[in-house]
């Protein structure tokens, strides 16, 4: 009984470790889908589970690789094997077959399996996965040995103040659209007339409208390559402050780009572990242009507009051809957004890539320590 449940719970834990939000309801739905599919159709389990566990484009794209890595580890190239660990073999067709057999024998409804899953199986899956993550995160993680615990409370408050100050500087912008309010100067005639219907045509409940104000959307891209090792910790702290205070979205990049907004918002000790997990597998040089490109086309997509500010924390050393960074940045500028480049040195050492795209960056801001960061609000406007 427990084995197929353990396997599904283990897969759910594997997905959770990679930033997916897979809780008990999702696992129940996964089991139900597997049971409802005809046995001969077990190959469709992958696409059915994909519809259940994915919540956005990013997770949609990453799912096939994670599925393959979990259920067919032998097919995955370059995977890290953990020594000394023994584990029951996983076979998806077997799991689906076992579930069908259990349903046939026990006549149990799919949803009824939830308690066993919540209490025992999920825990077992997590412990199995935790061991695996420990084996994998050791060698390739650029942020390893970073201790987030050494920060003083006063430092953290300074970062939050910094984010608030930046938010104040960039100000609430007037929108073309208007919003309904209870009191304002402008009467909304259409809505007032509509409201008056219930009072027999007497306008007893006037409605008003006011111009809407919204904070600019702030996006933060943090370079976590080897060359930025010393500063990544500081920048991630800044990113967290922005995420919490002004609802910014934060991304890390090295050879590819990944969103970490939700991970940063969870103020637990496991944030570092999670960041390790999402940056695991990064290697080789920094591909800034490709990452920025991915940001524009996949992550920010239609949300990038004239009300957006993009803060890039990077030294600008790019292994993509130098002209490509300019092309990528011009796409951001093309959407009307402003780019500020925060470099971890007192003076901006322009790499070839950055020198070619200088005209596309609104401002270069030194950000080598906490003190220099305090100048940011004065420079962003």
């Amino acid at each position, binding site marked *: 009984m427990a084995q197929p449940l353990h396997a599904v719970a283990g897969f759910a834990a594997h997905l959770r470790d990679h930033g997916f939000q897979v809780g008990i309801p999702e696992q129940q739905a996964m089991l*139900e889908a597997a049971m409802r599919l005809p046995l001969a159709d077990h190959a469709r389990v992958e696409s059915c589970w994909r519809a259940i566990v994915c919540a956005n484009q990013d997770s949609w794209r990453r799912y096939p690789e994670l599925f393959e890595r979990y259920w067919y580890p032998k097919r995955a190239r370059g995977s890290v094997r953990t020594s000394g660990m023994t584990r029951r073999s996983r076979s998806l067709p077997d799991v689906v077959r076992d579930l069908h057999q259990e349903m046939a024998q026990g006549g149990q409804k799919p949803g009824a399996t939830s308690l066993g899953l919540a209490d025992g199986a999920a825990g077992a899956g997590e412990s199995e996965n935790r061991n695996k993550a420990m084996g994998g995160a050791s060698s390739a993680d650029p942020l390893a040995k970073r201790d987030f615990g050494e920060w003083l409370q006063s430092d953290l408050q300074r970062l939050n103040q910094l984010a608030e100050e930046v938010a104040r500087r960039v100000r609430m912008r007037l929108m073309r659209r208007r919003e309904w309010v209870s009191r304002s100067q402008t009467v909304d005639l259409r809505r007032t007339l509509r409201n008056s*219907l219930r009072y027999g045509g007497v306008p007893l409940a006037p409605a008003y409208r006011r111009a809407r104000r919204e904070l600019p959307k702030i996006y933060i891209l943090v370079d976590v390559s080897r060359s930025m090792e010393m500063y990544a910790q500081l920048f991630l702290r800044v990113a967290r402050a922005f995420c919490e205070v002004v609802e910014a979205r934060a991304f890390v990049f090295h050879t590819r780009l990944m969103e970490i907004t939700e991970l940063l918002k969870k103020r637990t000790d496991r944030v570092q572990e999670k960041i390790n997990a999402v940056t695991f597998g990064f290697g080789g040089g920094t*591909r800034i242009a490709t990452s920025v490109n991915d940001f524009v086309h996949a992550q920010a997509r239609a949300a990038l507009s004239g009300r957006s500010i993009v803060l890039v924390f990077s030294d600008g050393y790019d292994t993509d051809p130098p002209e490509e960074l300019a*092309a990528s940045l011009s796409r951001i500028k*093309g959407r009307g957004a402003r780019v500020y480049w925060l470099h971890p040195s007192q003076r901006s050492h322009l790499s070839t890539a950055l020198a070619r795209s200088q005209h596309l960056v609104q401002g270069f801001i030194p950000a080598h320590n906490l003190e220099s960061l305090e100048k940011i609000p004065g420079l962003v406007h």
Partner: protein
Amino acid sequence: MDVGKISEGLKRAGYIPDQGLASALWLAEALQRPLLLEGDAGVGKTSIAAAYAKMETRRLIRLQCYEGLDLQQAVYEWNYSRQLLEIQRSGAGKPSGDRAFDLFDRSFLLERPLLQAISSTQPVVLLIDEIDRADEAFEAFLLEVLADFQITVPELGTITASSIPMVVLTSNGTRELSDALRRRCLYHYVEYPTLSREIEIVKLRLPEAETRLVEEAVAFVHKLRREDLHKVPGIAESLDWVRALHKLDLRGLPDEPELILQTLGCMLKTKNDRWQVAAETVDKLLGGERVGVTTGVAAGLARA
């Protein structure tokens, strides 16, 4: 109904799905969960709901979302003018019929799309189009509808669905949707179709067009999508363009770029895009594999 039959049924209804989409639709029906479709504009998200409704011969109820959409337009509204008339009639000593006079009777309720879908006795397909354009407050209201298929009208009580509708939500990603909404839905990301599938789609919709014309035109559109365009042409644009070329009595793509440039208005909808795709670009796209297709930028564009 199994996945294969859904696939076949959608084809008959004029939509050619990939395996993932057919599975997602099957699952949404089996688990009675809403299906959230995301993808670029023009990839055919809305058509999926229409084709599904046609396949199942169900009524399609569409709610087009926009900023400022409120409950009165989406769920229900009391028919105030009828209520006033009723009050006047009762004041004149002429109560309508024998029944007790109640201003908040169901007969005074104007049902808007969401309530129509919930109160329908026959199963329907409810399409909530471009949910990202609606306000967050409306999105929060939807949670009750999507999770429990019920709507609460304060004056009447809770109305629960007599037959569970198939709910399809679409989003273009102009705003991040809340986690709460996402978790109540199954998810499918609709990509641009592969070359062969798009050729199949265009042939299905325009059977009168020459096969060579369809193949060449769709291949051209695929190359054009790799260009750095502000508004990438979708399937609807491909169909429009092939239709235009067919009206010009062409049996294949012409060699000279001028004729293509004249008709590119079917696909390029912004001034910048129009300016960017000049005669040389068309020539290059007609000429075969685009230069530099394997470099970082182009590869990134293809992925996007």
